[in-house]
């Protein structure tokens, strides 16, 4: 199918001003671009978790698996293992993949499976109406922490670097040109691509005025250097006041899990023969 209508006619229920619109628009443009370059969108699959971000599965008119809270990444892993020809894009939230499904995220990075994980990181639970997430700053007052949180956020970029991700980037929903480049490069990257996207939650954590003066685009940074990446991802810890770098922090090419796990197909006859041989060996 070419020139397909990329947005479904499903009614959109994100709040006005939600950063998810920017992400959807960005993905739509990237998909249209890929199609123009000759890629069939029949071979693209979008997997989402549960949360505001996940509605994107209903809104984008491509193959999709609208999964469970925290479980987008293992579903995406299964899809890629089953059919390595598919381009697998996994949209997930910070509550989704940093809390409920953190183990899967770490393991996907560890395996370097060829997929792209985009974290819609609004640093708050939106759909459950405002509780803290693993990246909310210390003291965040949410409905489950009315006196403020008493735990520090973790730094997802640092975590992904330690876990073995081979493409690590950070974007911002108010810097859409850069966001498009980062996600596009992640999709093109052969390996596990991770993009943490600072996404505005207009209703529960509207951080535009905080982010906009602090963000800057990485320059003179060598993403091939692990040590440089380690230093750079620590510049901002998702808690203290510091410049917030946007761009690709780390990228290298390594063998992918899906390639290494690929199975040589066996014909039905060969399989029956193998079964017969096995049964014979047991008698």
């Amino acid at each position, binding site marked *: *199918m070419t020139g397909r209508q990329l947005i*479904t006619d*499903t009614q959109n229920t994100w709040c006005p001003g939600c950063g998810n619109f920017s992400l959807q628009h960005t993905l739509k443009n990237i998909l249209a671009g890929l199609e123009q370059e000759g890629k*069939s969108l*029949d*071979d693209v*699959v979008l*997997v989402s978790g*549960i949360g505001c971000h996940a*509605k994107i*599965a*209903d809104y984008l*008119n*491509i*193959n*999709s*698996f*609208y*999964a*469970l809270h925290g*479980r987008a990444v*293992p*579903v*995406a*892993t*299964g*899809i*890629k*293992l*089953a*059919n390595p*020809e*598919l381009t697998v894009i996994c949209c997930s939230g910070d509550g989704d993949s940093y809390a409920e499904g953190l*183990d*899967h995220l770490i*393991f996907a990075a560890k395996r370097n499976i060829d997929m792209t994980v985009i974290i819609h990181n609004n640093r708050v639970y939106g759909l459950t109406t405002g509780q803290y997430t693993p990246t909310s700053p210390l003291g965040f007052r949410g409905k489950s922490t009315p006196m403020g949180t008493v735990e520090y956020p973790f730094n997802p970029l640092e975590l992904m670097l330690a876990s073995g991700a081979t493409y690590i980037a950070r974007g911002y929903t108010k810097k859409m040109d850069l966001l498009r480049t980062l996600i596009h490069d992640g999709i093109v990257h052969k390996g596990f691509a991770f993009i943490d996207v600072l996404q505005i939650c207009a209703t529960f954590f509207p951080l535009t005025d905080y982010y906009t003066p602090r963000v800057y685009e990485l320059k003179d940074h060598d993403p091939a250097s692990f040590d440089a990446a380690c230093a750079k991802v620590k510049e901002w810890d998702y808690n203290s006041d510091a410049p917030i770098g946007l761009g690709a922090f780390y990228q290298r090419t390594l063998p992918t899990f899906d390639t290494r*796990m690929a*199975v*040589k*197909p*066996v014909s*039905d006859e*060969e*399989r029956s023969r*193998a*079964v017969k*041989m*096995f*049964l*014979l*060996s*047991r*008698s």
Partner: protein
Amino acid sequence: MNEVAVLVGGKAGDGINSAGAMVAQLLNRLGYYTYLYFDYPSLIRGGHNFAVIRGAERPVTSCRKKVDFILALNQETIEAHRNATGPETAVISNKDLVKGPGQAVPVHDILAAENAPEIMGNSALIGGFAKAAGIGWETVDAVFRAHIPKGTDLNLTVARRAYDLLQTVHTVSRRDMKPLPLLTGNEAIGIGMVNGGLDTYISYPMTPSSSLLHFLAEQKEKFGLQVVHPENEIGVILMALGASYAGKRVAVGTSGGGFCLMTEGLSLAGMAELPLVLLVSQRTGPSTGLPTYSGQTDLRFVMHAGQGEFPRLIVAPSDAADALYWSAVAVNIALKFQVPAFILADKTLSEGTYSVDLSSVPQVGREEPGTWDGALPYRRYADTPSGISPLAFPGAAGAVVKVDSYAHDEAGITTEDADLVEKMTKKRLRKWESLRQEMQAFPQVRVTGGAGAPAALLCWGSTRGVCTEVADQMGLRVISPAVLSPFPEKALKMALNGVDNLIAVEENATAQLAEIAIQHGIPVNNRVLLFSGRPFTPEDLLERVRGVLS
């Protein structure tokens, strides 16, 4: 002798299971139906392990209390199994480690004389056993050549030395039957699934399911299978559902604890209508329970697991031949109806070794379900009279394949519309009815023993063999459903025709099948329950059935 029982005992790490397998193959080669029960504690080294091998003129799936031969690799074997021995029992022991009755094999001296490694010590004991059982050397030679591919000649030399030293005690006579494949229940499940066209097996290790993971991982290249061991059981089932969505025939395997973690994924399979096969091999619960012992405590759990209402197939094979058949059926049914299909096993079945007479197993191969005709737009959940929507997978030209964990419309887009939710729920549940009808063509309920007897044993899973053995002696009927969901009420009631005393025999403390039968209007008169983690012996079962009959 027309029936023989052999016990092999030693400490964990002594290779008791493989020694037992060699004894089983000797009996197999002599023309006996063979069954091996392996008993081991949850540890790697030390502790007492034993295997009991029974050879008989007809298929057997249980072990009697008394044995004719004991192969003692350590002193504890003699002490721990006094109840299994009598004056007739022939003891063959390792002279270096065991003091006591019977014939001693000087294992150390034999190995030293042949300059053989310690690992070959068991070959000496097996050679000694063969002589004590009057088994011809040509049979020993053939079995060693077939089943010990490495260092065959040296193992045979070691075995021969012991063979020449010992005296024959009981002669196990040769029978006129060709050797049969000896398979563990898990191997049979694996072969059955492969016959049904399995593409992918995903599992996190958990006894007693792990040996299926090991078996398929070992054979994956020959069978053309993808075998994956992910981070945990949640990862297992979600990866499996991803692969299923992408068009693979997928199975997962676990035991009760791991299955607890899979229940959200199971419910997703129900809602998203993704085909999936699940092996749940029961062990003694609750919680960690007895990891290496058996139980039938998870029937109701598997039957009801997962939030919401959705159809599922549950088959509970009773032995390896049965597992071979039903596992292939499970793969095909899961795909045809786009439902989760359970193979409900237990430690006794999974890790027991059985003679499989392939001529008695109906052939089931890979069956192809109806697929999408290519008409656009593709609707993953198209409503149909059977409730089954035509399948297409991502990559199919022009198809936008959307699956969804939320309530959704026919295209797979989320909805909260009241009428649509009801319509789609009815569509899913219609598959339950279609499945129920489909399963009527299968041997859902099996009757063994005395077909017309008014007293009947009601059992499921691995206890069918021991029940049949006891029923044959007592003139009882045995009724055993192999399909437990959709519950085969009609077939069960037909099998019960003329029964006035129904005795539930189960390896659990609450008679789970009996309770389900009662819900379906089937009166259960008596219950014979065992929940020690050990399987029924024919003697104990007979005594307890006699107790409830009197």
